[in-house]
């Protein structure tokens, strides 16, 4: 990658025309636009947050955009990941992202890192960038991004979303707090639902990603008041933006006492290793094919659906609906003498339900492996997947 001395020192005439609306405002001007062109921003993740972020940074004229992603575009991404289009389903997100960016601004040098960010590669990847923007979707990578930013002295432009609520801040600047100052430890796995379980309003990563893009651009220009030492909370449903004060924690092991001197095992830190996988091959499992065969034979099976009512409306197998969290109170609706097959969307919640029912003395309970999505894949494609 070009060293600072080799960074571009002038705009071409085409670029001057392209950035005209920046150049005529004193807050950017020729000097600011050159700073943008010389800037090297790394986007970790080319998904919900990474999409608006990368598109706007590219449009604004950020000269070098790095993207770290290892994923492939799927249909469920298109509701919010505007870097990718319908024709990109099945392609690498990196390739699709690079094409979208080139379409908007061919002057951008896109650096693709096809990898999961890990403790082994993070410092290497971060080295050649000035600013890191965190658009990841899990706690392990968020702590990794934070610690790597603190260790390399690069600002961490943070954004995170859940359903219709988001958070944004700028961490790990010289004088400001880092992510660990705010949250010293991650929640244990399973206590907080993921986006895949909890859902996310499609526009929300748009809102939060553009806040991150705004902060990245302000850091590059060195103007305005960056979100350092402030946590912005966005609630899209009530459309309220609130701001909380953050402090640098003198006892923070990353940026305070600096006891963290190298990257650690973040999966272990987040308790992911050894986490129970969705049950497969367990006694009591039933495959979609077996269930189909048994139902066709006219066996007297009781199908229990432990999803939420709004999921039942999307598609169902005609099962009796008791959402997982209501199961303890509504167990009386089940006949312990009958053979019960429990299902959910993918098999995770139903495995928990089966375990719970067995503890309660039910002996003839099965878990439909892979849930209604596997039923759709393997038995009846007319049942929609979601």
């Amino acid at each position, binding site marked *: 990658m070009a060293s600072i001395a080799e960074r571009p020192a002038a705009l071409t005439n085409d670029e001057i025309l392209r950035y005209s609306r920046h150049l005529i405002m004193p807050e950017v001007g020729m000097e600011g636009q050159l700073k943008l062109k010389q800037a090297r921003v790394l986007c*970790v*993740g*080319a*998904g*919900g*947050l*990474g999409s608006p972020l990368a598109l706007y940074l590219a449009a604004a004229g950020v000269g070098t955009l790095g993207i770290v*992603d290892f*994923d492939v575009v799927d249909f469920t*991404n298109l509701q919010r990941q505007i870097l990718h289009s319908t024709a990109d389903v099945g392609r690498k997100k990196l390739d699709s992202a690079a094409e979208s960016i080139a379409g908007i601004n061919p002057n951008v040098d896109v650096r693709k890192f096809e990898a999961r960010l890990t403790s082994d590669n993070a410092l290497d990847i971060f080295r050649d960038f000035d600013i890191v923007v*965190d*658009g*990841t*979707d*899990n*706690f392990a990578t*968020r702590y990794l991004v934070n610690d790597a930013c603190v260790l390399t002295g690069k600002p961490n432009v943070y*954004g*995170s*979303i*859940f*359903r*219709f*609520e*988001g*958070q944004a801040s700028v961490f790990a600047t010289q004088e400001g707090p880092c992510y660990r100052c*705010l*949250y*010293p*430890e*991650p*929640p244990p796995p399973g*206590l*907080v*639902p*993921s*986006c*895949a379980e*909890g859902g*996310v309003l499609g526009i929300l*990563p748009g809102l*939060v990603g553009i806040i991150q893009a705004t902060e990245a651009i302000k850091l590059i220009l060195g103007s305005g008041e960056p979100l350092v030492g402030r*946590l912005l*909370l966005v*609630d899209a449903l*009530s459309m309220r933006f*609130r*701001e*909380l*004060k*953050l*402090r640098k924690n003198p006892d923070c092991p990353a940026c305070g006492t600096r006891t963290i001197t190298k990257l650690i095992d973040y999966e272990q830190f987040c308790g992911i290793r050894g986490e129970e996988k969705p049950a497969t091959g367990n006694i009591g499992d039933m495959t979609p094919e077996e269930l189909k065969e048994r139902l066709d034979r006219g066996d007297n099976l009781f199908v229990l659906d432990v999803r939420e009512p709004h999921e039942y409306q999307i598609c169902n197998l005609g099962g009796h609906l008791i959402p997982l*969290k209501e199961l303890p109170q509504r167990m009386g609706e089940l006949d312990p003498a009958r053979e019960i097959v429990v299902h959910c969307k993918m098999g995770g919640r139903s495995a928990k339900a089966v375990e719970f029912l067995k503890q309660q003395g039910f002996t003839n309970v099965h878990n439909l492996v892979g849930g209604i999505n596997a039923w759709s894949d393997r038995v009846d494609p007319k049942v929609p997947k979601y």
Partner: protein
Amino acid sequence: MKILIPTPLRQFAAGQSAVEVPAGTVGEAVQALLSSHPELRRHLYNDQGKLRAFVNLYLNEDDVRYLQHEQTPVADSDTLSIVPSIAGGRG
């Protein structure tokens, strides 16, 4: 005082986004909330009764860790926010 409940925890508070509780301190406010919604407890406190490291309490815009923790006095006009860490974004 008003307590604002974040999206991920609303399912444990009868779906409410905010509740009004009578309280003289931050701790009393949280206890009042937990007595009407006991399911919230394990999401806010660990087995040792300590506030979890991934949940912060803000009195208005200040982190109670930098005030007097749960002993921080509150007024009726104050707002207490529960701010847990959330991780979504890429997927």
